[in-house]
């Protein structure tokens, strides 16, 4: 009898432990679903494959019914820059629509893209960050995970001409652009003045400037080479000066054929190699990450910093010492001798943006929120007020006169541009091409791969 009882007990214990094991994920989901994000806190809200919306959040939710919208964002810093702007709009929307709860899950770019794919296989959050570039969007649109938007709804939203193009496929619109990104050289104006350095107008002057800065014991340019993509944007910048307005055609042709031997691409790559070889970047640039690189500049250890216009918010970032923060200015890549690109042909594009999931259970509400974000007095206005570079919409109504000098400069650069490049080279092909070029560019710039091998390797990745 005793043994039988023990046998039964053991069996029960075993079954119970298994049930607990199975039940764990349910508990987790409930906990995740129940934890709303009322404030600006970044939060790992949902799990992959979590489609368990509370029953009262169906797509037919009448106004007044509780609705939970899940926002998956690539902006983990919710206290500064773009992330702050996004959070401000979310808070406002929730205050205006008390029945709506918006849960934010934010990861930085690489982690974001990885998890995006996991979500794509198993059920997307309702509103997601996307990039209107072939390297990201092609596969995503092929998989049909994004909801189609009605382009006519956005006629009055003031989108800059052509800025929606990257977010379309077969004439249908699947997302909206958030920024206009410009590739810039940020520099420390005070450091330049103190040393008698001048903003270069030609590539040769840039080289001479770099030599002078080095002679003063300072790193000329802080470059995030560890990530690969900033250097690819830099290469784009050079290529625009070499090839001028034919940049986009040359690259799309190269991506289509896998043949990157066009003389313009060769010349631009060679300039990059010579530039790195001349010691214009910090020692070890090819293994340093975004934060470390930016710190070199914001700590005053580097005189210039090569990055996109989204980092204009440095001028308002209180974590940066005022003597540096207030002196940050910017210029664009100077002209290359013999190149077809003029001073006002710039490397700029409409990259990041938002889209709504095709399978969202609250799609109508999600699109409503998306449209709210893009009301001209939201993303554009708040973005401008918080110094987050340029939006993809007309910002002129929101000029306050209190803009930072850096903002004004960037605005002028955009205003004076005679042509903009469009998508940077690394984002022009499939994601396998992007992965290849972002790795190979480290090898070619540090001299361990020849220019020819580099071009052959990135060509092979296009197949």
């Amino acid at each position: 009898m005793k043994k039988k009882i023990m046998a039964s007990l053991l069996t029960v214990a075993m079954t119970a432990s298994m049930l607990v094991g199975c039940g764990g994920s349910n508990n987790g989901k409930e906990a995740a679903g129940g934890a709303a994000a009322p404030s600006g806190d970044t939060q790992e809200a949902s799990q992959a494959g979590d489609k368990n919306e509370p029953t009262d959040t169906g797509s037919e939710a009448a106004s007044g019914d509780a609705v939970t919208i899940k926002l998956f964002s690539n902006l983990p810093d919710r206290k500064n820059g773009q992330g702050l702007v996004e959070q401000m709009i979310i808070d406002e929307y929730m205050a205006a629509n008390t029945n709506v709860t918006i849960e934010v899950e934010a990861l930085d770019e690489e982690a974001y893209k990885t998890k995006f794919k996991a979500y794509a296989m198993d059920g997307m959050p309702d509103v997601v960050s996307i990039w209107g570039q072939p390297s990201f969007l092609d596969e995503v649109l092929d998989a049909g995970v994004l909801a189609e938007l009605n382009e006519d709804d956005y006629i009055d939203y003031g989108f800059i001409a052509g800025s929606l193009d990257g977010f379309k496929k077969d004439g249908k619109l699947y997302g909206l652009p958030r920024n206009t990104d410009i590739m810039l050289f940020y520099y420390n104006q005070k450091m330049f003045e103190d040393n008698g350095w001048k903003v270069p107008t030609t590539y040769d002057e840039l080289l001479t400037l770099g030599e002078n800065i080095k002679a003063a014991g300072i790193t000329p340019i802080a470059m995030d080479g560890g990530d690969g993509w900033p250097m690819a944007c830099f290469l784009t910048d050079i290529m625009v000066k070499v090839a001028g307005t034919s940049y986009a055609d040359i690259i799309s042709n190269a991506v289509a054929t896998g043949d990157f031997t066009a003389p313009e691409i060769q010349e631009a790559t060679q300039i990059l190699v010579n530039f790195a070889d001349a010691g214009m970047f910090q020692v070890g640039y090819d293994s340093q990450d975004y934060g470390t690189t930016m710190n070199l500049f914001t700590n005053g250890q580097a005189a210039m910093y090569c990055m996109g216009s989204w980092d204009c918010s440095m001028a308002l970032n209180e974590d940066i010492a005022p003597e540096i923060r207030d002196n940050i200015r910017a210029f664009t890549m100077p002209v290359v001798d013999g190149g077809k690109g003029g001073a006002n042909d710039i490397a700029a594009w409409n990259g990041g943006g938002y889209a709504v999931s095709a399978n969202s259970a609250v799609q109508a509400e999600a699109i409503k929120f998306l449209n709210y974000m893009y009301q001209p007095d939201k993303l554009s206005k708040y973005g401008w007020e918080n110094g987050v570079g340029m939006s993809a919409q007309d910002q002129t109504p929101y000029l306050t006169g209190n803009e930072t000098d850096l903002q004004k400069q960037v605005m002028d650069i955009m205003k004076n541009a005679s042509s903009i490049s469009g998508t940077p080279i690394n984002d022009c092909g499939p994601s396998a091409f992007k992965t290849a070029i972002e790795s190979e560019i480290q090898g070619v710039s540090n001299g361990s791969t020849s220019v020819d091998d580099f071009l052959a390797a990135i060509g092979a990745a296009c197949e």
Partner: protein
Amino acid sequence: MKKLYSNKLIIFSLVLPGILVFLFAVLAPICLSVYYGFTDYTGMGEAHLIGWDNYVKLFHDSAFGRSLKNSLLLAVGFICIQHPIAIVVAAVLDKLQGKAEGVFRCIYFIPNVISVAVIAYLWKFVYNPDFGLLNNVLAAFGYQGKINWLSQQNAIWSVLIVLIWHGFGWGMLIYYTGIKNIDPVLYEAASIDGAGWWKTFFSITLPLMKPVIQINVTMAIISALKQMETVYLLTNGGPNNSTQFAANYLYQQAFKAFKYGYGNAIGVVFIIICILATVALNTIFREKQEA
């Protein structure tokens, strides 16, 4: 109790969870990997069967070759550098006795307790050419230049040092436990016979540690093959794949390059290599035992 264990229901209920875990968490994913390895699946949308294409491409992929070479280097580093030092340190610890023994055992084990993320960032800062500890120490000794510890040429060695340092505690602890299990009478007998420390070490400690060494070496080789987290956080395989390891490369191809099918092909080859390595090691050790 004996009857209890001959009850088939009991046996079944005890074994079932293990079998289920194996089936669904190990076997099923491997089978799926084999299937996806033959497809052009991007991770989204539909998968199309493409035969052996992924495998043909893999055998011509220099980055994959590089990652296997790096795994081999790491395994050699573990076996030739980490483990000899670990055995000697374990033997010395054993001789220390008293408080010092516990204190040093703790100190050597500390790196294993710290999370991999912290370790990776710690070393990232140590290696930084501008403000890193290493270059500052060199500067204190009067060296003027800035050494790029994570350059294309140096990076793999810098990464190996971190991995060897980080895994040292485990190896040492297992050897230490092995040494503790050796009958002290043998040492007493040896000292009566007038054997010195080295003589005792080579004639008693090492031979009796054979099974422990076998386990440790097998584990070292498997962990060298599986290496991912530290490399991902420290260099992410860069610059230009010079510190690439198979697991990290698999991750990059599957999840960054949207080549899920290719990633699975890497996974399958990787599993085969791991199994081959384990079988080879077992064979080598068995032959030695029989000899």
